[in-house]
């Protein structure tokens, strides 16, 4: 009897892909490379205008033809009372301003060369989110991924256009709600992940969600960087993996070379789960800013959006002047396994080979 290919999952059948590996990236070139290597890729477009999103979709289609790909947006799930930028800045306590000034002096942080990106960006409200979604509907993008917030209200419109809708969740009850609404797949994201993530570990959240998902495919996210992680995720009942940090240092990635070098040198101990950048817990590479806010005499971190207004100028200056000691990037705990700047295609194939070897090890096949 022919042996089943353990890497051929229901996610592969749903999307018509060869390998159950999803790359989440902000770089179009990575999307093209991963899709053409037999995986699936999702472009994060949350900070882009509708016109930019339309242009990116056209670019990707010119590179991948009819192969499917996805676009990730962030749907707001809660909205505080609105304030102008000036009103928000005026509410930052003087003690916090002085502490930040001290950081600038101790670390010789220069003035940014460019306008602070966060100050230029108007923020995401319901109106902007809907304008972004309208582009996806007009373009009939194969897959829409909601990186936060429930896509339930737009599901019917997307399904009528032949689109698939995935939801990324950090709690089982969110997954239950979205599965009941009819999403096509769930991404269960654990604490190991890069960026803003929930407090539940990948090894707990994935089987929890699988247990309630029925036929809905579940992808494992958080710390997934190797073929062994892929094999483990499938053993937990996942139908695939959602990977992010893995692609930041790949050859096609447009990340700054300094960030790539920091990622290649980093171990899992070089990431920190901290509120000091945005006011909400997020996992990032350690840097001067995280070190300062971790000191016992540091003031209490402010909530969003005030803390991110405090950190915005530092981040802009760090990136403008390309200072390795100041620069940071969201990175998951799996960063330890990223040791070479490989082409994205090679990363896909290495992950597949390693996963198959792991399964062979388990079953005793030579």
């Amino acid at each position, binding site marked *: 009897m022919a042996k089943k290919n353990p890497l051929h999952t229901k996610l592969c059948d749903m999307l018509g892909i060869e390998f159950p590996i999803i790359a989440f990236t902000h770089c179009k070139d990575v999307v093209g490379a991963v899709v053409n290597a037999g995986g699936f890729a999702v472009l994060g477009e949350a900070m882009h*205008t509708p016109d930019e999103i339309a242009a990116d979709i056209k670019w990707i289609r010119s590179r991948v033809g009819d192969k499917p790909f996805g676009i990730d947006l962030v749907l707001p799930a*809660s909205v505080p009372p609105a304030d102008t930028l000036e009103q928000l800045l005026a509410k930052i306590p003087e003690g916090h301003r002085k502490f930040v000034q001290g950081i600038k002096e101790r670390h010789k942080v220069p003035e940014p060369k460019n306008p602070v990106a966060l100050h230029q960006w108007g923020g995401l409200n319901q109106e902007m989110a809907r304008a972004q979604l309208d582009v996806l509907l007009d373009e009939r993008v194969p897959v829409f991924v909601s990186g936060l917030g429930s896509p339930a209200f737009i599901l019917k419109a997307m399904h009528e256009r032949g689109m698939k809708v995935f939801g990324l969740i950090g709690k089982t009850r969110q997954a239950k709600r979205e599965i009941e609404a009819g999403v096509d797949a769930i991404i269960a994201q654990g604490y190991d992940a890069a960026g*803003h993530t929930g407090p539940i570990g990948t090894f707990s959240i994935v089987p929890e969600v699988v247990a309630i998902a029925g036929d809905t495919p579940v992808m494992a996210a958080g710390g997934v960087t190797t073929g062994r992680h892929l094999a483990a995720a499938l053993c937990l009942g996942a139908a695939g993996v959602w990977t992010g940090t893995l692609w930041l240092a790949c050859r096609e990635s447009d990340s700054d070379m300094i960030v790539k070098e920091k990622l290649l040198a980093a171990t899992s101990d070089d990431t920190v789960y901290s509120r000091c950048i*945005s006011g909400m817990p997020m996992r990032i590479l350690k840097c001067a800013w995280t070190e300062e806010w971790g000191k016992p005499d540091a003031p209490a971190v402010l909530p969003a959006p005030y803390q991110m207004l405090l950190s915005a100028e530092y981040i802009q200056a760090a990136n403008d002047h390309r200072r390795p000691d100041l620069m940071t990037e*969201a990175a998951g705990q799996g960063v330890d396994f990223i040791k070479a700047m490989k082409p994205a295609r090679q990363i896909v194939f290495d992950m597949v080979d390693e996963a198959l070897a792991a399964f062979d090890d388990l079953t005793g096949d030579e």
Partner: protein
Amino acid sequence: MNNKRHGSIPARPGFDAAIAGKRAECDGGGLVAGGRAARQEFTGMLTGEYVDHGDPPWRWYLLVDLSRKPEGYPTDAVWCESESVFLLDD
């Protein structure tokens, strides 16, 4: 960002008596600098007030008297997307 590309989206306010006064949690959050999603959690009381944005309607409920909110959150009210609201009294 170009917020005007698709014009203003109509918002229709309403009141749902069935949920007014009920305690609820909101698995909230949104977008922060760098284009990343960030989660924020709230617990409070639903007033029953809601707003439906656009078509298909995207419903938002008003949660007040917040007994749990992110540290330093400056006000005692938050608008929560309906699918992110979990009633505590049911």
